[in-house]
């Protein structure tokens, strides 16, 4: 029997339209917009000023604290200005705007395609290289990777889980990366294992990607440190806590971090970025983005420079279909609708999804019929209907008691609700308020 997590979970239509499309390079845009807050934690601090010439891979904003990450220029050219730019949050945020001139890389970066498999580095050297390169979790949460590799005192990582699940419908960027850069991902995995001083790693992949499973199994044959775990297709298996549960059977305690059960989870994209950062000295300046949708002319996977406007990618994928009703940065379940085509691709953008107007409409909300479907699909074992009601009535005490902070915002409850109730909308609001109250109480 294939492994999966319990409780909860759903299986939405997969729609992996671009799974057969090889990763392409859409060309370098004329201007890039690089926000200084692309990760969880403190925003980075710009170290360039207007008019400066920059090369690809040059540091343009340095980490603003321990939980923060360096940001490097993804293009060569001149800094046009440092100003506010619209980003996927729906608000204007500070960012660095660079006019592109040519494509000149920093000399220290190895831009060749050769595989560098051998390494003889200490754990500290690897973590240092990752920190310098500004690698963050590329699965979407964008948590700085070097922070994950340095567990708090008294805690010890025992296993590494590499996340190749890609449970979001439509998205195929991780899938393609596993097929095309399997060797590099395995080197990256070994680097991460060395950095964390663990000797066991699992790569979790859902069984809707048999080609990737087969390829990786073939590549690791003989080695017993890395194991490929085939998982049953189930959303949200790509969630950190769900993946740990599926692979190891252990449950992360409420409010705790994965390290509490001795696990660290990294995305396959992150493993690839770690390989590039350590072996090729290449900072995180590009990532794979899926551009897809039912009416998109050419659903594609692109290797995109960070800061490229979404409009460039849409044009590269065959232009904007006329019936587009919603543009989502990320997947259909957890992604965020964007309202502006100038929004840049950031480190956390895994896909751009163009939904038809008819697909994206919300249905009319009616009363809760107490069917408890939301309870049975919640992967965190919460009671979404209750959390929604208390959030709507602004009863933050009961919301906290109902463990609202454990919600991972996967949207399974809203997806499954037969009354089309906006469960997650209210729970997210409640989570924000309760988080605020808890922080005030602490200080």
């Amino acid at each position, binding site marked *: 029997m294939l492994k999966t997590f319990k409780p909860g979970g759903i299986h939405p239509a997969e729609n992996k339209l671009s799974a057969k499309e090889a990763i392409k390079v859409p060309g370098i845009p004329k201007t890039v917009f690089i926000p200084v807050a692309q990760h969880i934690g403190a925003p980075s601090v710009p170290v360039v000023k207007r008019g400066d010439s920059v090369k690809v891979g040059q540091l343009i904003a340095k980490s603003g604290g321990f939980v923060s990450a360096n940001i490097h220029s993804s293009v060569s050219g001149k800094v046009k200005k440092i100003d506010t730019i619209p980003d996927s949050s*729906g608000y204007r945020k500070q960012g660095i705007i660079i006019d592109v001139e040519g494509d000149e890389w920093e000399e220290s970066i190895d831009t060749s395609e050769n595989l560098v498999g051998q390494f003889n580095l200490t754990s500290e050297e690897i973590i240092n290289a990752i920190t310098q390169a500004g690698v963050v979790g590329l699965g979407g949460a964008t948590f700085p990777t070097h922070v994950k590799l340095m567990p708090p005192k008294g805690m010890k990582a025992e296993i590494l889980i590499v996340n190749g699940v890609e449970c979001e419908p439509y998205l195929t960027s991780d899938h393609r990366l596993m097929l095309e850069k399997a060797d590099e991902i395995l080197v990256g995995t070994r680097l991460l294992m060395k950095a964390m001083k663990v000797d066991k790693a699992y790569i979790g992949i859902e069984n809707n990607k048999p080609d990737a499973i087969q390829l990786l199994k073939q590549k690791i044959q003989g080695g017993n440190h890395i194991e490929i775990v085939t998982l049953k297709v189930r959303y949200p298996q790509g969630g950190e806590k769900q993946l740990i549960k599926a692979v190891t059977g252990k449950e992360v305690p409420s409010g705790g971090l994965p390290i509490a059960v001795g696990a660290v989870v990294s995305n396959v994209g992150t493993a690839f970025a770690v390989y590039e950062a350590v072996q090729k000295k290449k900072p995180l300046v590009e990532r794979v983005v899926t551009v897809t949708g039912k009416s998109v002319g050419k659903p594609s996977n692109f290797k995109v420079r960070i800061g490229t406007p979404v409009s460039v990618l849409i044009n590269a994928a065959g232009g904007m279909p006329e019936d587009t009703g919603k543009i989502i940065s990320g997947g259909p379940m957890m992604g*965020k609708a964007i309202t*502006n085509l100038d929004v840049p691709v950031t480190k956390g953008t895994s896909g751009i999804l163009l939904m038809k107007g008819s697909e994206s409409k919300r249905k009319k909300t009616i009363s809760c019929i107490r069917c408890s479907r939301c309870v049975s699909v919640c992967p965190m074992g919460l009671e979404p209907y209750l959390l929604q009601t208390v959030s709507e009535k602004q009863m933050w005490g009961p919301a906290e008691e109902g463990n609202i902070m454990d919600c991972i915002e996967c949207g399974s409850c809203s997806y499954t609700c037969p009354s089309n109730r*906006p469960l997650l909308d209210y729970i997210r609001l409640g989570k924000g308020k309760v988080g605020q109250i808890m922080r005030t109480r602490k200080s």
Partner: protein
Amino acid sequence: MSTTIIYTVVTLSTIGTLAAVILYFVAQKFKVYEDPRIDDVETSLPGANCGGCGYAGCRAFAEACVKQNELSNLFCPVGGNDCMGDVAKILGIEAVKQDPRVAVVRCQGSCEYRPRTNKFDGVTTCAIASSVYGGETGCQFGCHGYGDCVAACDFDAIHINPETGIPEVVDEKCVACGACVKACPKNLIELRKKFPKKRKIYVSCRNEEKGGIARKACSVACIGCGKCEKECKFDAITIANNLAFIDSDKCRLCRKCVSVCPTNAIIEVGFPPRKIKQETSEESKAKTPATAGNEK
């Protein structure tokens, strides 16, 4: 038969008397002394329990008045100076007078001035909309118009104007409790000094973007040009983050800032039409929606 009745009555009255005696002594022993003035003060308060004073309700406010025995930082915005005078009389101390205030919505981004750039189909509350994104227009500081302030008002004093989609305050009903100020996720509502004849001058904008971006999103946005700041003789206007602010405690209603504002972001309410240059004044008045709307 009759003995049964007698026994019953006697037994019950004995138990009753005994219980009464016990209860009396217990009540004496555990008596909580409460200042009788708290009740007096509470009776003199409006009893709206709106929380505008910062306390949980009128009773909590009355307790605070009696406990602190001075009124320098206690004020009931609903009752106003009269009510606080009564409270002071009961407590035998001096009342601290405060200028009456009124809520003002600092946005005039109707469809006409602030074109819609997208459509929101989520839950129509301002709190959720603003947690998701900047809003249906290019201005991320402006009013969503879903009426969280209307829902928060206990006094029926704020309503969404169906024509502009922006809330408007009914001055007569507004008690300046501040419920709407707290409810607005965009911090658009401000409590300003109440002038006679409902007169008001204020910067009806909260956009902190640079002039060009602000103006592109909304034709009546404050662009932070600073003309009003230079014009003001009373130091009432300050510019911070590309946004002008008029301090209502310093403002003398001279209306000079209104005439120099290039975007009509500063609006005047409740004034008679200007005498000189009748034509231009009418023109500028026509450009300013809130002048017409709020005057009613």
